[in-house]
C-alpha cells in the first residue's frame, strides 16, 4: 500500500476530495471493509427444527464439514422463516461442549466408564441381544403361534425419524419378536 493510497483513505481527505461527511464508507477500516457474513461461501441444507411439533423449516449452513449456523427457512409454509429462541439455538444442540462423541462402557458392578471401540461394542450388544432372545423366545402356546419375547424392551423418543421408527419396529417386532416396544408418544 503506497502513501497516496493511505492518505486518501483518511476521512478528512475524503471529505475534502469528495465532499463526503467523513462517516460510513469514508471512515471504514480495512477490517470493516472486508467483513463477510459467517456463512459466506457456505453450503446450505434444508432441515426441520427438532424441538416442538410445529415443524419450522431450517436452513443449515455448513462449510468444510462443519456446521456454521442454523437459520429460519423463509420458504416454509408453516413457519415462514421464523424460529423461536429454542429453534434459533438448535445449532448449539449439535455443537455444545458436553456432547458425547465416543462409545462408553460400564461393566457389571464397575464404578467407572471405560472406552470401547464402536465395532467391539456392536458385537457385544449383538451377542447380548441374541443370548437374551434365544433363551426367552416362545414360539407357540397351546398349538397357536406366539413368536414372542418379553425379556427385551425398547423405549424411543419422539424425535426419532419416521425411517428410524419403521426400522426399529420391523427389526425388533417383525424380526426378533420383541413386544415390549414403546415410545414417549404413548399418552
Amino acid at each position, binding site marked *: 500500500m503506497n502513501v497516496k493510497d493511505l492518505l486518501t483513505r483518511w476521512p478528512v481527505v475524503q471529505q475534502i476530495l469528495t465532499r463526503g461527511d467523513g462517516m460510513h464508507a469514508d471512515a471504514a477500516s480495512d477490517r470493516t471493509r472486508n467483513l463477510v457474513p459467517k456463512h459466506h461461501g457456505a453450503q446450505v441444507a434444508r432441515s426441520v427444527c427438532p424441538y416442538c*411439533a410445529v415443524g419450522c423449516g431450517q436452513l443449515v449452513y455448513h462449510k468444510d464439514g462443519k456446521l456454521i449456523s442454523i437459520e429460519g427457512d423463509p420458504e416454509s409454509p*408453516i413457519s415462514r422463516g421464523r424460529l423461536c429462541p429454542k429453534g434459533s439455538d438448535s445449532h448449539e444442540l449439535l455443537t455444545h461442549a458436553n456432547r458425547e462423541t465416543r*462409545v462408553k462402557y460400564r*461393566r457389571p458392578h464397575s464404578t467407572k466408564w471405560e472406552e470401547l471401540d464402536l465395532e467391539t461394542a456392536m458385537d457385544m450388544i449383538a451377542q447380548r441381544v441374541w443370548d437374551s432372545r434365544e433363551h426367552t423366545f416362545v414360539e407357540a402356546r397351546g398349538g397357536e403361534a406366539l413368536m414372542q419375547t418379553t425379556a427385551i424392551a425398547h423405549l424411543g423418543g419422539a424425535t426419532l425419524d419416521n425411517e428410524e421408527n419403521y426400522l*426399529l419396529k420391523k427389526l425388533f417386532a417383525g424380526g426378533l419378536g420383541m413386544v415390549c416396544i414403546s415410545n414417549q408418544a404413548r399418552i
Partner: protein
Amino acid sequence: MPGLGTTFGRGGATTALPDLMNADAILIMGSNMAENHPVGFQWVMEAKERGAKIIHVDPRFSRTSAVADLRAPLRAGSDVAFLGGLVSYVLDNGKEFREYIVNYTNAAILVSEKFQDTEDLDGLFSGWDPKRQLYDPQSWAYAHCGAGPDGEEHFAHGGHAKESGQITAVDLTSCERDDTLQHPRCVYQILKRHFARYTPDMVERACGVPRDLFLKIADTFCSASGPEKTAAICYAVGWTQHSNGVQIIRTAAILQLLLGNIGRPGGGIMALRGHASIQGSTDIPTLYDILPGYLPMPKFGVNSRDLTTYYSKHRDRTGWWWNIDKYMVSLLKAYYGEAATKENEWGFSWLPRVTGDHSHQGYFLDMMDGKVEGLFVMGQNPATAGPHTRFERKALAKLKWLVIRDLVELETASFWHDSPEIERGELRTEEIATEVFFLPAAGHAEKDGCFTNTQRLVQWHEKAVDPPGDAMIATAGDEVEVVSTVPALQALGHGIEGNDRVDECL
C-alpha cells in the same frame, strides 16, 4: 390419540396450523401456545388481526392469556365439565348446525333399546361388569343395522388401534335413523339427555368459571360457528397428560361436530404435539399394540389364529378399514420380502403376539420383577421423564444390560453412579450388575430423514454434515447401512443363520 381416533377414524389433528387464520374464533385450552408453540401461534395472531376472537381457558394466566380476547381461569382437571357445559349450551339453545349433523354425523341414528345412560344407573352406563371392572359395550350398539358377512348382527365401533376385538363396525347407511332428530333413542337425543346436567351453574361450581363469563365464552364460540363461520380448538399436553385426557378430547370432538366445525376451512381440532415427530411415532409406531398405519398387532387368543380371524375382527364395512387386508399384506411383504407368500399367509404367523400390557409402564413393572433382561433407550430419558422416576431408576438396576443412544450422557445412562438412590444409599454402585453401553447419536442436521409434524405434514430434513466421532445414523432406505448401525440388526449380520424368519427380515 384415542380421543380423535374414536371420533374421526385416525388419531391426528383435523386441521393445519396455517388454516387457523381462517377461523372466526379460536378456543385454546390446556396449552400455553404463545410460549410453547410460538411459531405456530403466528397463525392465531393472524386470525386475530382478521377479526377472530381468541379465547383462552387455562388455570394459569400466561402469555397466551395476555393476547386473548376472553380469558377464563379453570380449576385444574375440570376440563370435561367446562366442555360439557359448552355441549349442553349448544343443545339447549339450538346452536347446532342441523344440516351438518344430520348428513355428516351419527346424530340421527338410533341406538339399541338395551342402552341405559348414567342417569338411569346411578353413574354407570349399561353393560358394567363389576367383577371384571370392565364395560361390555354390546348394549351401546346401534339398533337394527344390516347383518355382517358372517350372518351375525354387527355393532358400530371405531377406534385408535381397533383393539377391543369384540365389536366391528357396521355400514351406517343401513341403520335405522330419524332425520328429524326427535326419536328418544337417536344419538342426538341421548346426547342431549346425557349433557343436560352440565348447566352454567354446574360449570361454575365444578370449574370455578363465573357463570356470566362462561355464558359469554359459550356465546362467542357458538356465534363464530355455523354455515358461514367456523371456530377451531387448540389443545396440548394440558389435556393429554390428564388421566382422563381421552375423555376431554372426545368431548371437544363432540362439540366441534355439533357446531359443524370439522372438515371446513378455519374449523377443526388442532392437537399441538410436543415433539418433532410425536405424530409420526404413532403413525409409524414404535408402540407395542400397533403396526405402521394403525394396523392392530395380533393379540394372542383374540385375533391371532390366522389372517381370516384377524380380518374378521378388524374389518369395517365402510371407510378405509374395509381395505385392512390390502394394508396388512403390503406391510407383511415389506417386512418379509419374497419369503412372504400366499401359502404362508404372507408371514402373518411370524409376527409376535401381544399377551398383555407391554407399554412403557407395563414393562417397567416387569423389569422391577427381574423379568426384563435388556433395554434399548433411544432418545428418551425414563430416569427423569417417566411416571414414577424413583421406581424406574431402581428397575433399571435389575437389568442385565442397557443400551442408550443419545447426544449426551443423560440420567438414564448414569443411574448407576449418579442418582438420588445412590446418594441416599438405596442402591450401591458396586452391587448393580447392569452392563451399560452408551452410544453417541447423530443430531437432526447430521442425517437424512423425515419428521411428521403436529398437523401430519411429513417433512424431509437433509443431512448437512457427518456426525462426530462414533455417533451413529440409523436412517434412510439403505438397510445395509442400518445393519452396521442399529445395534441389534447387526446381530443378524453375525452368522445367526438357521433362523429363517430373521434372515427373511433382512
